[in-house]
């Protein structure tokens, strides 16, 4: 049995929440692609410590974990789903674009939608072929602009964070700046207007 297989077995055999956290942390630290399915599965154990360790481990593995992350999103457990979306957002692989678009617009759980909205701003666009890049960026921006009208302030907040990052892309900047101005003038929540102010102070330097 390889070291990784032993570590995977330790996760399966963990008989307390604390042991589970330790086992997942050790497995994540192994940085072995063979650990990917077990790390993803640990999102569903309702053990936040283990899930956070798994997010960190998968994010470190990066691109190589993306296909399995995309294929194993848990449609029946929004807690687990939020960790998947958070990991995809942190890795920033643009293959996650469609999943993030759908999650940000249609998921019933705000925690999933916030993670997806933030993620739409932080995709590594240079990994897309130049022919697809512009269309993909505009799709992400349009989705986030729509979310700035959401009735839930926390969704609007996440949309601003995503848009602030997208404003680095020259041909998107003017649409985003226009929307920021509108929000600063009209959003009912002071916290949202404050986040817009911060975003404006960052984007005006660009």
């Amino acid at each position, binding site marked *: 049995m390889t070291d990784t297989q032993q570590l995977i077995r330790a996760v399966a055999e963990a008989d307390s929440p604390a042991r589970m956290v330790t086992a997942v942390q050790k497995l994540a630290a192994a940085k072995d692609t063979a650990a990917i399915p077990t790390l993803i599965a640990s999102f569903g154990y309702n053990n936040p410590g283990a899930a956070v360790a798994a997010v960190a481990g998968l994010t470190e593995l990066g691109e190589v974990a993306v296909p399995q992350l995309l294929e194993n999103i848990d449609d029946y457990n*929004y807690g687990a789903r939020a960790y998947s979306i958070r990991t995809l957002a942190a890795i920033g692989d643009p293959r996650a674009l469609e999943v993030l678009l759908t999650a940000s617009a249609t998921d019933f759980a705000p925690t999933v939608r*916030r993670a997806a*909205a933030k993620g739409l701003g932080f995709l590594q666009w240079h990994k897309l072929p130049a022919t697809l890049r512009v269309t993909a960026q505009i799709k992400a921006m349009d989705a986030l602009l729509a979310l700035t009208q959401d009735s*839930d302030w926390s969704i609007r907040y996440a949309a601003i964070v995503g848009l602030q990052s997208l404003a680095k892309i020259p041909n998107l900047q003017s649409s985003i700046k226009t929307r920021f101005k509108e929000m*600063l003038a009209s959003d009912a929540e*002071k916290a949202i207007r*404050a986040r817009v102010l911060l975003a404006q102070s960052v984007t005006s330097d660009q």
Partner: protein
Amino acid sequence: MIEPSAEEYLVESTQPLTPEQATANLRSSDLSLRYYAAWWLGRFRVRSTEAVDALIAALEDEADRTELGGYPLRRNAARALGKIGNMRAVPALIKCLECTDFYVREAAAQSLEMLRDPSAATPLMQLLAGGVAAAIQVPGRPHLTQPYEAVLEALGAIGATEALPLIQPFIEHPVPRVQCAANRAMYQLAQDPQYGERLVKVLDNSNLQLRRVALGDLGAIGYVAAADAIANATVENSFKLIALKGLLESQLNEESEALSLTDDAIRILNLMDSLL
């Protein structure tokens, strides 16, 4: 006792209503329609004179009773009036503080907290009569003799500094949630960080519900020194975001029109970003 709510648990109703229909339904012969209408008017914050009048009238409803003598419609009407925010409801809500139904008294105290009318301070203080010694569990019921949490929070929100000596002993009340409410009120009235720090300590408690309560309290009092402890608490991110939003808003209060960002505000925003 009402749990703090995160949006995850909001359930949207499917029954279509208009403000006019809901107002009319408050006088329906079908008691369940009345009950639902009162909730609906609060949920959608219907501010028309007719709706407020009808809800105030519903605070004296005698038709809708539970087996234990409770007044379900009065409870919902009292809750709705707090959300709607019309000060005309204050005298009627104060009267509800003497209702025989614990949950009506609780709902009235919570709504008076939202309305923040100083005239409610003395009647609220009367519910603290007898102090901690009288604040015991009612045999066979899941609540204390009075809605102490709501009363303490209301006195803090109203800024009733005259209540300070009455509130302070409740910091040692055996029920942790009552302790939290007392610390929250004491911080609001005395602006002494020791009360904020007591709430920060609760974020390490083994009970998740209590950690959520403390988050809500810290957000409500805008205790900025708690920002990092809130962000690191073992509680769902939705609750942490709401608490940090409370801190942020306390930082933005002074500059109401021309919003500007302090260093603390930027620090809080960065923490909120990390929780998305």
